[in-house]
């Protein structure tokens, strides 16, 4: 008897952005991400409510991965921001908050969507063109002759995640380490193609952050029964990517047919021991396997004086290949070609607290380094690890474009002022090119600028007010508990630290209308260096992603959902 199940029809939602349900969900998402933004952002506890592990974080990569919605539009935004994070690591929350603000402002303005989209695109080009200019005054060139600006950049990234709970000296220490690790991964002797090395992070719970350190070479977990280690140098090593556990894992789901009485286990073991014999004859001293090594083979090798390390894990394979020059052996059924062997210059044992690790140092210069990260508890250590990996990525991006943007919201307020000024000057030309009225153009531009300013304001979470100064258009924060009449006494520097307050400085609250201004460039001879910097490459891309995603969302006319 066949049964017929009635299919429910697909549901088509017309103009989804006009439904209150989606609007309130977008607002919730914005509030969730906005409240996590910046060094004083609030943390979120992500868990499954049935006793699974709890992750405390304010990182966009964690938060966005955790949220999922029945609304395809929310998932679309999420995926597009995650795509950005995947490529650039930084500025995920910026992109998300900016994108959601653009959508919200456009809805509130009540303009036609296609006008908003065209104006947004136009203003995006205006922004990116300006930021690319040599004399852009919210951009600083990074000086690779000194580590100062790199440390500042690293410090800005690390301090943006309060879950790390770092004190000032700890923050300085970790920022320096991040830069040190980055510099170690840049090879000195440049052949034709430059290949950056790797930093391997080793988290170590229960120790003070100040005990974190960077070592050239690789640190591997020490096997329990290492046996006597003869640290002769340099030594020959072999690296297996195939499992040597004694099964045929490369077989997958395939079927084997065999005669009864065949002991496959012992036959494979014989094969393994054969392998061991060859390795021994070739005078290999270090035997490493990505997966499990059969205990009998381990025992055989150890008895013959080899250092055996199993369960290396896939993430350490690439660094070890770079360090030793070994070719990973993917099968146990052929002889190992001599070209597959690698060399390690020095093997030693290092102890960190109760943890012992094997330290492999390269024969030449290979740009692989290990970073031991310590923190008092798991939650803070996890976030610290995440942040350090992000910092490494951000520092690497500086090699592509050796500049950075002013942080602390100053770039956003500066850009908003610049765009207001620029678009006002060119209003008649632009509106005719874009095919809209001057009023429409003005309103759309205002929405764009306000969205930028909202991102800057999102950095403050403790009730303080966001201000803009009327000369350089930088971002200033007036604390909520400030009682003094004169703002210049409370606010000594702008958020990025490049502008100092003085007697005749004028400010305006960010959420009020202020006189249009053309932001003045920073004095080049100024002794003040910005203390907060953002990644240039990541932020440029975040701008594009935010605007393009917002435009796409504004362009959606129908949502068709299949509920079967």
């Amino acid at each position: 008897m066949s049964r017929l199940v009635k299919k429910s029809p697909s549901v088509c939602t017309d103009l989804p952005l006009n439904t209150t349900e989606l609007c309130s969900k977008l607002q919730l998402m914005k509030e969730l991400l906005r409240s996590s933004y910046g060094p004083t952002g609030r943390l979120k506890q992500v868990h499954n409510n049935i006793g699974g592990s709890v992750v405390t974080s304010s990182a966009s990569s964690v938060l966005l991965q955790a949220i999922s919605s029945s609304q395809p539009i929310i998932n679309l935004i999420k995926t597009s921001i995650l795509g950005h994070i995947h490529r650039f690591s930084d500025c995920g929350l910026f992109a998300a908050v900016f994108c959601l603000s653009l959508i919200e402002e456009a809805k509130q303005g009540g303009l036609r969507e296609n006008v908003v989209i065209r104006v947004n695109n136009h203003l995006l080009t205006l922004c990116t063109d300006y930021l690319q200019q040599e004399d852009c005054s919210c951009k600083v060139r990074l000086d690779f002759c000194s580590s100062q600006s790199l440390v500042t950049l690293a410090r800005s990234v690390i301090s943006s995640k309060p879950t790390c709970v770092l004190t000032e000296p700890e923050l300085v220490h970790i920022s320096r380490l991040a830069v040190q690790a980055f510099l170690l991964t840049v090879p000195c002797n440049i052949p034709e193609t430059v290949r950056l090395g790797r930093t391997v992070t080793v988290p170590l719970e229960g120790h003070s952050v100040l005990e974190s350190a960077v070592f050239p070479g690789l640190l591997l977990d020490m096997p329990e029964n290492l046996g006597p280690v003869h640290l002769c140098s340099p030594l020959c090593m072999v690296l297996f990517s195939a499992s040597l556990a004694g099964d045929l894992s490369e077989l997958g789901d395939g079927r084997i047919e065999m005669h009864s009485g065949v002991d496959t286990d012992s036959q494979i073991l014989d094969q393994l021991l054969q392998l061991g014999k060859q390795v021994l004859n070739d005078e290999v001293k270090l035997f490493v396997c990505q997966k499990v090594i059969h205990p009998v083979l381990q025992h055989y090798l150890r008895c013959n004086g080899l250092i055996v390390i199993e369960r290396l894990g896939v993430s350490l394979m690439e660094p070890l290949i770079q360090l030793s020059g070994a070719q990973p052996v993917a099968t146990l059924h052929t002889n190992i070609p001599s070209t597959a062997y690698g060399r390690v210059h020095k093997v030693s044992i290092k102890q960190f607290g109760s943890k012992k690790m094997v330290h492999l140092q390269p024969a030449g210069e290979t740009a692989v380094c290990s970073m031991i990260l310590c923190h008092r508890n798991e939650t803070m250590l996890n976030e610290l690890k995440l942040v350090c990996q992000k910092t490494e990525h951000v520092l690497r991006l500086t090699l592509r474009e050796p500049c950075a943007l002013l942080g602390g919201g100053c770039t956003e307020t500066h850009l908003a002022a610049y765009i207001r000024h620029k678009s006002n000057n060119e209003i008649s030309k632009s509106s005719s090119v874009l095919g809209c009225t001057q009023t429409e153009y003005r309103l759309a531009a205002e929405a764009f600028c306000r969205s930028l300013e909202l991102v800057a304001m999102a950095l403050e979470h403790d009730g303080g007010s966001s201000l803009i100064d009327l000369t350089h258009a930088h971002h200033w924060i007036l604390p909520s508990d400030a009682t003094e009449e004169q703002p210049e006494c409370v606010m000594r520097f702008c958020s990025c630290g490049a502008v100092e307050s003085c007697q005749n400085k004028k400010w305006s609250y960010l959420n009020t209308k202020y006189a249009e201004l053309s932001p003045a460039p920073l004095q080049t001879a100024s002794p003040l260096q910005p203390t907060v910097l953002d990644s240039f490459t990541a932020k440029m891309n975040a701008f594009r992603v935010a605007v393009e995603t917002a435009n796409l969302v504004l362009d959606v006319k129908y949502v068709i959902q299949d509920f079967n």
Partner: protein
Amino acid sequence: MLESVIINRRRHVGLQKVSALGGTVRSSIGPDKNYKFIQDETSGEAVLVGSCFRIIDNLELTCAVGQLVHETIRAHHKEYRTGTGCLLFLAGAWSRVALDCLHRGISVKYIITCMSEGIDICLDVCKKSSVSIKDLSVIQKCTQDLGLQRSEKPIKPNQETPNVREKCLNMSAQRKLKLSRHFCETKSEMSSTVLHPDAPDLPDVAVMAESLSHGCENAMRLAVQAAEMLLKMNRQRVSDRLFDISKVMTCVLPALPEDCSCVVEGCVVLLSDEQAAVSHGLKQRPLKVALVTGDLSQTYRHPGFKGLSGTRVHGHLDLSASSKEDEWLDKVLKLLLSLEVDLVLTAGLASPKVIQLCCRHHILVVEKINPSVFTAVTSSTGAVPVSYATQLTEHCVGHGVKIEIWRDLGSYERKSLLAVNISTGGEGGLVTAVVTSCINGKLQALEDQFWACVYRLHHALKDGALLPGAGGTELLCVHKLLEQAEHRSKTGSDASFYRGLVFQLIADGLIDYITAITKGTQARTIVRKQLQDFHRDEIIAGKFLQLVLESEREDAVFSAVKPDKAPAVKVYDNLSSKQEAWRKALDLVFLVLQSDAEIITGVVQKTEENLMQL
């Protein structure tokens, strides 16, 4: 489709939860701990818990904050085995500080800055008031001579000396006067100890033990025995000076009175009937030993081995599972006999068939052996651990392990029990603390107490310093905090006024802690009074400690805790454990304070408030 749900917590429920959890351990801190029953309502089962770690471990905390608390407590317990109560209590107290500040409208950012400064002051006090172990042994050796001097500085007439002497005279003249390093006598052994400051090369464990027992005298007695035994056994090994805790094990014996607890050289294990018979034949001669890290059974495969899944066997002569096992048993037995192995120790389990078969051939198989026993046997006999029994060769077998019948326990639950002692002899030997109790439910708590004492001694030797205990350090911190608070409030500006307020609240938390550990109802007023006196007097740490000591006595009277004997021993606390506990407590508060929402990725009960679907 899964939808994430966000709980917005405007009322700082998280801090309230931490505060509530902190309250549950109030009676589980300090020297007089109360036991608690934790009952499972569905099954009716109950456990008896005596420490903060066990309370949190046995409560099923599913909420996010609960898990954070559990994670923190677990991490601290793993490293220190003591101080988790202090951690959780202070986390609770300081959560209330944060809540209080929020109610007064102080911003989160500012609360964090001020509380961090507060804890820095406290940690600084710890650093300054710590007593080095060397000084401690000097102080403890002093007898009731009353010519008190400050030991650190050159001897000079001190204004307060007569005052202190007077106080001491008021006390029983016989009582030992043990204060801090600031007070030492001039005569008697002083000269010799000062002249040879390095003379106590091996720190006297027993000296510290008394002051670190914190109400667990019996457990501490065992811990001291263990430490001294290890020290004696490994006297020539420099690395073992610091009480190597990896060489200590415990064996829990039910149905024996508590005063049967003792420390034994070697490794004590319980054996069943059959095994007992074999061990009688093996006692008191050097044995050949094999070490197996895996399970002793035919079906065991090393972790990571997947086997062949898609095999199809041709032919009909397939061996059944049972005959395969017989074949394996035969092979193993032949191998063991040919290697003349007397004793097989396995870290995993051994199948009953193997045990039986080996027993018949006078080979003793003992399962579930602690890895540190393997290390000890390996280093003393040269045995090499293998994963599979079939892997054994002549070279892997060690020689020289001895077995003694430690005690015949008669029958327990209709099974006869025999405790045997496996001793490795030679260097790297082990000691076992045998923990006994007639009450089964109490065994866990007693074992925990033993480990707490062992770790306290271990960390004391490792740190090389101790802190004044019984609330002494906390009281010093309170004083310092209040002093700073007063200083700030004088400067006038708003910012420093809040700072002063936060310091005061942190100090209140510490006073609450002192009250809780001394269990005195009037402790709070005494502390207050002392602090007042303290302000009038010249501020000298030594004088203050004197007051602390006095407070203990007074308190003992007030709370009627052991009224017959005033504490004769100065109490000390571990330095690193306390510092870490404080730091971790504050970290916990900061993480919870800064969290404003939960994202739930799984299924949600609709009963919760403030849910928002995304």
